[in-house]
């Protein structure tokens, strides 16, 4: 059952990351750069590399999560990224900035709704990350137990 929840969680997360990347890659990078700039956190020189690189990173993480490849790294990186996004959005919201979220392309205002959605995604991501690491630890323990019971590995 836990395995099914993990699969559902990583497919959801992966799908969201892929969609987020798609909405940004489908438009010119400057449009995402405008959104990033509206948060007022990055210097002008950093806008282009971040606006170009971030959607590809989202796409890579989304694909890894969906494919189930390198799950520990992908889930941990996705959680770290979502934590940064969430922190930045909360900061902007508390400052009362009337800006776009920049989450899925153009035209979505930063609001309590977008914060709630990103908070839920962060929760799912953390749950997936913890589940992946627990599964890995369990698998290792299982292997160690097997090799202790049967050190020759001939059983």
């Amino acid at each position, binding site marked *: 059952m836990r395995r099914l929840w993990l*699969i559902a969680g990583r497919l959801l997360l992966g799908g969201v990351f*892929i969609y987020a*990347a*798609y909405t940004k*890659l*489908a*438009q*010119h990078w*400057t*449009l995402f*750069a*405008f*959104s*990033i*700039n*509206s*948060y*007022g956190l990055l210097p*002008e020189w950093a*806008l*282009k590399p971040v606006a170009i690189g971030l959607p590809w990173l989202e*796409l890579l993480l*989304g*694909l890894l999560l*969906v*494919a*189930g490849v390198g799950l520990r790294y992908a889930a941990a990186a996705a959680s770290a990224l979502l934590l940064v996004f969430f922190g930045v959005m909360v900061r902007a919201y508390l400052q009362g*900035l*009337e*800006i*776009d979220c*920049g989450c899925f392309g*153009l*035209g979505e*205002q930063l609001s309590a709704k977008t914060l709630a959605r990103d908070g839920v995604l962060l929760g799912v991501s953390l749950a997936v990350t913890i589940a992946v690491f627990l599964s890995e630890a369990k698998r290792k323990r299982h292997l160690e137990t097997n090799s202790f019971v049967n050190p020759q590995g001939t059983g």
Partner: protein
Amino acid sequence: MRSRTPFFTLRTIGVGLVGLCLAVVVSAQSPGPTAAVGIEKGYGSKSAPIYMEVFSDFQCPACRGLYEATLRQVIANYVATGKVYLIHRDMPLPNHPHARTAARYANAAAKIGKMESVISALYANQDRWSADGNIEAVVASVLTPAEMRQVRELVRAQEIERAIDADVALARQRQVRSTPTIFITHKGRTTPLPPGGVSYQLLKQYFDYLLQQ
């Protein structure tokens, strides 16, 4: 062996989804709303390939910031060279008591072909007239006495009110939430720019990209 079968099935589905997503991303075309552009108060040539509409409130500090830091350079480098047609749209906000009066003067100035100098003066002296409400003195400082007489008459005209109301209605229709809000129209496609993050350097790169299309 039995426990491995679902794993491989899931992996196959995953790899298939990955391929599908890649194909979608590679073939993606920029989506965007299309809208007719009403041309009322513009700078530059109407035959420019890019139309830039800016919904502004003359009393809003962010609008002044955009005008001073970005629009002046756009006017000098893109409007003057016939690449961009810049359209001013009024969106006086209710919390700014002098914004609508300032918009009336700007519209009246537009009627006599003096919009650019009046808008420039309104933003340059925003602090002053926002405090004392004496917009006429600011407008008079950039017009001749004859032009000022014309503007004084036009300011009270219904036509001016209707022009402002038409912009406000357009703002509502476009779901403009704050000022300044910018729309870029190129090849029949209108794109709203995210509010708050439009710098000249980024806008320049966006315009150059559009002009290469």
